[in-house]
Each structure stands twice: as C-alpha cells, then as structure tokens.
C-alpha cells in the first residue's frame, strides 16, 4: 500500500542490488579471512557463509532499525532537529493518562501495556488449566487439545477476531438473538479492550498451553511422593510443592503471552475500535492522510522497547528457573492425583473453553458460506465464487476472480521464503552452537532481536530503510521475501538450535577426524538427524509466511498483493463474507501442505531418537 507511492525505478533497483551484493562480498571475504585465522574450525566455506548471513542480518534487521531511530530525529525534509526525537517519544498520544481522570482515551503505550498484561496473564492461566487437565485429569484430552493448539497456526490471524464479530458483533448471532427475544442490545462492547482480550485469549492460549504442558510434564513426580511420605495432604502438596514449582514456567508463559499480545496486529485491526494500541497505530500513522513517519517511528521504538524489556526479563527468569528445574525424571514415580474439587473445576473449565473455541471457529468459517450474515443465513458459495471465479475465455481458462492474484503471489513468495529461511536457520543454528568465531555473540544478539521485534516495527523500518538509496528495494517481490525470511528466521533458529544441541558434539568431531569436510558432515551426519526438525521448520516457515500480515502490510503494492493484506482490505470494506471464504481457502491450503510435507519428508519413526539416546 505505502510502498506503491515510491514508484521503483528499475535503474535504482539494480544499483541497490549491486550495493547489496557488494556488501555480501565484503562480509563473505571477512568470514573467509577469519576462517584462515583459525575461526570456524578453519573451514572457509563456514566462514564465507557465516559472513554472508551476518551481512544479511545487519542489512535487513539492524540497518532498518537504526534508520528508524534516525528518522525519529528528522523533520519531514530529512533534517536532524535537536529535541525533535524527544518531543515525538514523549507525545501525549503515546503516554497520556487521561482515561484515568476523564472520558478521554489513554496513550497507545499504556493501552498496549494494559492489554499485554491482561492477555499474557489470562492466557497463561488458561494454558495452565488446560495443561493440568490434559496431563493430570483427563489424559483423553491430550489429543484434541494438541490439535486445537496447532490449528490456529494453520489459519490466518483474523479468523478468531472475525468469529467473534460473527457471534457478538452488531450483526452477530448472539446480538441478534438478544435483540429479537428481549429487545435488548449489547451495543458495541466487542470493539475495545474487552473484545481484544477475548480475541487474544482465543488466539494465544494454545501457545500458552503448549508451553505449560511442557512445564507440567517436567515436574518431578518424586517430589510429590516425597511430600506424601512426609504426611502432606493432596491439597497441601498442590499448594506448597506443585504450584511453586510451576512458577518459573508460568512467568515465562506470561512474558511470551505479553510479547504476542503487544505485537498482535490482526485482532486490534478488527476489534480495537477506539482503543488504540501501538502495533496498529504505527500502521495508521503512515497510511492514508497522516503519513507521519516521525510519529510511527516513536511508537515503533516504544513498542520495540517493551518487547526487548520483556525478553530481557524472560532470559532472567529462564536462567533462574535453571536452578529450580530438576533434570531427569525418575521412572518409577507417579504424579499425584489432584484433589477431586480441583480436578472437577479444571475439567469443566477446559470443556467450556474447547466448546467456546469450536463455536468461534465454526461461526468464523460459516460466515464465508452464508448469503448475508445477520439477515439471510441460507448456505451459499456466492462469496467463494465471487473471489475465486474461473472463466473460460475461448480456449483459455481465466482466473478472473479478484482474489486469485493475491493468493498466487502469496503462495509463490511463501514457497520461496520457507526453504530459504529453513536453510539459513539451519546454518546459523549450526554455526552458533558448534563453531567458535568472532561475531558469534553479534549473530546471536541479532537473532534474539529478530525474535523480539514486533512485525509492525520491522515493516515501518523497512519502508524507511529501503525506500531510498543506497538500498532502494521497496515495491519488489525480493524485499517481501526477505521480510518474510526475517520474520520466520528467529523461531526456526531456536527450534533447530534446540535439536542440534541434543546431538552430541562428538558426532561432528568424529566425522571431522575421519576426514569428512564440514559440508560432508552437515549433509551426512547432521542433516539425517535433524530432518524431522527441518520438516517442522519448513512447515512453520511456509505457514508463517502465508499468514503474516503486520510486517508485509507496509511493503505490498498493486503488483505484489498478499492474501492477508488483501483480506484486510475486504474487512475494511465490511465484506466479511469474502474475507472469511478466503480464510477458509487459506486454511485448507495450509492444512493440505502440512499433510503433504509430513508425508513426503516426515520421518515419524522415533527409533532414530531412541538410537541416539542409547548410543550415549
């Protein structure tokens, strides 16, 4: 949208490409030189590629953020004005506390903070309830809950928000029913903090559940037994042993939930109403009439600072929890059964949550397949046909529906971005966990930065950095792919690092002493052992690239329209039917791809891992 205003001149693009390649060459030769001095286990290949990757991160992560920080101090003509940065950062629209004393709105920073705190805490609490239910009360819940935890990842990020609109919006089923039966209108309550919290609970509880399930599984049952043998009642054990042991993991889940919440873009876009939050306000500052980059930068930096602070606190908690967690489970010990009233409440809450979740999802998808929501509920494929029409023109089939372009572009870019990011993540995870080199901590720091920075911040920084020479790349598919890669990379790196660290270092070393090169070692030893993780990374990359909206919304234009941004456009016009039909199509595609990748590349035999364990 915004990018289209910078009509890219092809010459500029090629000049920028040369600059980029030059930088790559510089970093590659730096890596090669370091390898000759003893870094990277003396492998020039490793040095060159690590140099290239470091250059990639510097150019496409550090540089745009610096550029955004610089813009903060510049007026609209690009001149640095002293004091301007401070004025923008301390803007009352960001920090005002008016809502406490009057009916006026509070600043976006406070709004984001409040939303993040409520959502982070609530999702973690609900996640803990679900984790206890599936692990300790109703083991039969493990599968459906696991499925419900993964499903949202295969859906575009607005499904929950739209589902809530279908239920509770002005034309929503429940609102209509209340109005018709009791002539009572619930009004616009959904559009504001309450609706946002509700939507985020549905969106982020699955992640909290997955995290808390790991925490509950890692509780050492021997401690329960010890407490029982010391004569404690079940309730007392729950209160004095189990819950305190959960605390580090719970805090961690809260922080992750907080970061997810403040970086969330899809839900606020639909439901925020007048409750402005940073993530969407950054976007609204630069689209349309406002075009206030200074203000966008100020908000972006505040948002980034929130996220970085949360990450810093998280790493503190993680290092703390290392003292608390007990390694290794004793095989004989049995986890204590929870006291009956607790079990009952946990189970009822979980059942309620699952039912609500099913309701939200089914109403969301139903919204795409009825004639007019709120008035005519007759089933119809009209929205789908409208978006994805196929016409026959003489002998050619024509994809004449307006949704086709964005869908095909998204598929194309996601199919490029997913393998690229999985490969980059593999290399970076390997270099960082196995090799010694100058710049390793820089690389690690950049990957943490990429993890913490919310997508909107990346998006606005990209506009500022890549709309002007020397790296004028906006409006190109290349920049969108790069942006997708940067967004997918940190999670891929984390998951692959975790797997690589499980593989004993001596396997690589044995390979090296047997005369294999680094490339041979990677291909023949590391690759087969991390293949399942690679499959997961590929899938995650594809799905994330298909569904990401916050960062790329700044970069799309008429030529490169993406599915998510196109859907946002439809939502903006109130065309929920087509938006939801499109969401269903996307969900269907991603589920199909997930199954296909799993079938083609997946290695479900657990024997590998068992062998690895036995070999130690």
């Amino acid at each position, binding site marked *: 949208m915004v990018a289209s205003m910078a009509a890219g001149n092809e010459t500029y693009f090629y000049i920028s490409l040369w600059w980029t390649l030059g930088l790559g060459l510089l970093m590659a030769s730096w890596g090669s030189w370091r390898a000759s001095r003893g870094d990277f286990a003396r492998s020039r290949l490793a040095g060159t590629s690590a140099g290239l990757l470091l250059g990639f991160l510097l150019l496409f992560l550090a540089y745009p953020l610096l550029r955004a920080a610089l813009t903060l101090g510049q007026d609209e003509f690009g001149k640095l004005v002293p004091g301007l940065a401070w004025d923008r950062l301390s803007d009352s629209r960001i920090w005002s506390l008016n809502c406490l004393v009057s009916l006026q709105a509070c600043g976006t920073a406070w709004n984001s903070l409040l939303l993040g705190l409520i959502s982070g805490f609530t999702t973690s609490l609900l996640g803990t309830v679900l984790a206890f239910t599936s692990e300790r009360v109703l083991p039969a819940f493990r599968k459906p809950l696991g499925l419900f935890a993964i499903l949202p990842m295969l859906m575009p990020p607005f499904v929950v928000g739209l589902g809530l609109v279908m239920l509770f919006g002005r034309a929503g089923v429940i609102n209509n029913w209340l109005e018709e039966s009791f002539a009572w209108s619930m009004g616009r309550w959904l559009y504001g903090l309450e609706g946002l919290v509700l939507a985020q609970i549905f969106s982020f509880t699955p992640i909290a559940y997955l995290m808390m399930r790991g925490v509950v599984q890692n509780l050492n049952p021997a401690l329960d037994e010890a407490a029982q043998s010391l004569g404690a009642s079940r309730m007392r054990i729950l209160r004095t042993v189990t819950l305190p042991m959960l605390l580090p993991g719970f805090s961690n889940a809260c922080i992750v939930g907080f970061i997810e919440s403040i970086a969330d873009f899809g839900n606020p876009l639909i439901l925020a109403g007048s409750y402005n939050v940073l993530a969407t306000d950054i976007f609204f500052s630069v689209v349309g009439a406002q075009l206030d980059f200074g203000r966008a930068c100020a908000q972006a930096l505040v948002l980034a600072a929130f996220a970085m602070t949360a990450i810093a606190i998280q790493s503190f908690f993680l290092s703390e929890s290392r003292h608390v967690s007990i390694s290794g489970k004793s095989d004989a010990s049995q986890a204590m059964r929870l006291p009956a009233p607790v079990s009952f409440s946990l189970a009822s809450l979980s059942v309620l949550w699952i039912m609500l979740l099913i309701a939200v999802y089914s109403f969301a998808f139903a919204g795409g397949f009825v004639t007019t929501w709120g008035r005519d509920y007759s089933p119809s494929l009209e929205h789908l046909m409208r978006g994805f029409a196929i016409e026959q023109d003489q002998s050619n089939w024509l994809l004449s529906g307006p949704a086709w372009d964005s869908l095909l572009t998204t598929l194309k870019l996601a199919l490029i971005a997913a393998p690229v990011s999985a490969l980059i993540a593999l290399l970076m995870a390997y270099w960082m966990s196995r090799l010694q080199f100058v710049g390793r901590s820089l690389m690690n720091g950049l990957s943490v930065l990429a993890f913490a920075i919310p997508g909107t911040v990346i998006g606005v920084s990209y506009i500022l950095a890549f709309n002007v020479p020397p790296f004028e790349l906006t409006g190109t598919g290349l920049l969108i792919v790069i942006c997708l890669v940067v967004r997918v990379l940190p999670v891929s790196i984390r998951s692959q690092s975790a797997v690589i660290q499980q593989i004993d270092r*001596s396997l690589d070393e*044995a*390979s090296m*002493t*047997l005369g*294999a090169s680094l490339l041979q070692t990677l291909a023949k030893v590391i690759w087969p052992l991390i293949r399942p993780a690679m499959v997961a990374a590929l899938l995650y990359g594809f799905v994330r690239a298909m569904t990401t909206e916050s960062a790329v919304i700044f970069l799309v234009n008429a030529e490169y329209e993406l599915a998510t941004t196109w859907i946002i456009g439809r939502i903006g016009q109130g065309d929920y039917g087509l938006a939801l039909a499109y969401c269903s199509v996307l969900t269907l595609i991603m589920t199909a791809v997930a199954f296909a990748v799993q079938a083609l590349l997946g290695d479900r035999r657990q024997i590998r891992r068992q*062998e690895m364990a036995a*070999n130690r």
Partner: protein
Amino acid sequence: MIGVEIKSLTKAYLKRSAPVIDNLNLRIPGSRVTVLLGPSGCGKTTLLRLIAGLEAVDQGCICIEGEEVQHKPANARGVGMVFQNYALFPHMTVFDNVAYGLRSQGIKSEAIERRVQQALKAVSLEPYAQRMPAQLSGGQQQRVALARALVLEPKLVLFDEPLSNLDTQLRKTVRRSIRALQESLGLTVIYVTHDQDEALRIADHIVLMDQGRIVQEGDPSSMFTSPASEFAAQFMAQAHCVDGHIDQDHRVCWGDLVLGSHPGVAQGPCRIALLPNTWELITPQIDVPVLPGAMESGPGQIQGLTGQALVGRGLIRGQVGRIEFAGPFCDLEVLAAQIPEGAVWVRSSVQTFKRGDLVELQIQPGRWFVYPHEPVK
C-alpha cells in the same frame, strides 16, 4: 623415532583467563602407547583435542611425524580418534559407520567393501556389519569406533578415556584388545585417562599432567617407583601425604615418629608421602611385653609402651580398628599412639584379623618419599 612433537604449546579457552595448556613441550615416541594422565581439568583432554585439530592452537606448534599440523583443520590431519562415548553415527549401520571415512575420501566401493570387512575382522565384529549401533553392547560399540578409526590407517590414533563407559570386566578385555591391535599394527597411540591403574597397565610411556603442565614423564615402572613430586606420588602411587620435618641428624620425622634417615636434605619442614605399603604388618612377637591396661585405654590411646623402645627395632605397636574387606586383601585401620594422626590404614593379605587385635607395624625403607615443603598457594 618421534611420533608427535609439541613445542611451546599454549591454549586458553577465554582470553585473559588462565591457560588450560601452558607453554607445553612434549615428545611422544612413535609406535608406542603414550598415556596422558592427570586429574580432571588438568588439560589432558584439551591437549588431545589440540592434536586432533578439534580446538584451535593459541601458540606453539604440533608436529606429527615431522610435519607441522597446527594450521590444518581436523579433517586434513590423518589422525584417528576414539571418543569417550564412541560417537557412532546412530543413523548408520556398523558397516556404514566404518566406511564413512573411506567414502569421504571418495574411494571405490569395492575397495571400501574389502577394507571395511578387514577392519571389522580385526575387531571380530564381522557378523554385526548390518546392525545399527543401538543394537550393540557397549564393548561392541567401542570396537566399532576403533575399527572406524583404524580403517583409515592413521599415522596416529587418539583415545579419549575409551574405557570409562564400560564395566570393570569389559575394561580388561577391551584394554587388552586395544593393546594387541596397537602392537600388531605398530600404531602410535595417545591415550587419555584419569585412572592411574589403567595408565600403568596400558602405557609404554606415561605423561603426568596437572594444571596445564607436565609434572613428570617416564615409563610406568619408574613413574610408580620414583614419583618426582608430592602430586606425582599421590596420583601415581596413591600415597598419603603428611607434614613432617627433618631434624639436625637428617632424620625424617613425622611428629615424634622417626621414619628413617635421609641424608642430603636440608633441615626443616618437609612433606612425606607414605605409600599404601609403607607399613608392613608383622605377627606380634611374644617377647615384646604387652602391658596390662593397654586394651582398656581406648582406641588410639595405647598407654604403657614407650616409643623409643619400639622405634629402635623399627616397630610400632597398635590395635586393629575398622576392617575393610577387599577380596584378595583387606585394609586395616591400625590405631597407635605413636602415629601423629592416631591411626594408619594398612594393607594386609592375612584375613584373620578382628577388631581389637594387637598388631605390630614396621616401616619399610624405600616405601615413603620426602619432598620439600611448598608454601600453601
């Protein structure tokens, strides 16, 4: 013939921290087994990894058969290595594991087939070629690792605590098969362990290390019989070290107890290393009077015997305290007033002692060592 020569080698893991290997010089004989021995953290494994090329050298050089290799990556050094956990590739069969190095070199498949079979035969694992590593026992895995290293005919084979994951019985068999293979192939072997018994049994040459430096090196028997320092005596011969002094008559005294004379050592405080066999138990002699009341006076408090009377004959009289049965022999705690610590542990092949028995000890010449007293660091 020199197998490996190491000159002024220095390695620190973190800059500005104390080096793990500190200006180390060492010559390792060819076609022999050299054991790097020392407590954990002494730098022996780091030294091995530096030779293998798995760690980068800070300073100094490493020559393998006269060729400087410190600038070469691990895969270009032609050095075989057997890891503590064997590091077998879990996703490959035994055959593929052994063939791995040959395939990396791009050797023809018929040749690979032949050489792998030969290597598996050498470690008597031919029937297991198509098994996965997880299906093998610890000792078999160990032999696969050995075959995998040897099939490349390396100039030098490095062993990093290869027996530490095996049980006692297997250790003996695997140790002897390693030694037999080494002798039949004339291999140069560097072998890292922290177990002095294993070192004494397998080595031609022992290099004792502590805190990144070489404390002493030599053949096993000389290392055992004449340890060069208190640390060496403690580590090689399991000596018990105590504070003593040398009087004006050059006598070595532990408290009031005179162990013997040691001419040529300056008067003053010293350290005495007592080997487990410093004390010899001798059957109590009837002519030595056992005074009444000796039994009643409690452990370590035997009264009524004057030290002088016994020391003249090299004898200490005491009483058996706790007994540790250890199979072919037993260790006795002998409580005696003349011993400054009140008791010593004595090894005895006679198993008939009971708690409270009266015994006599004799100090054996040459089974204790005197070292200068070093100020506490």
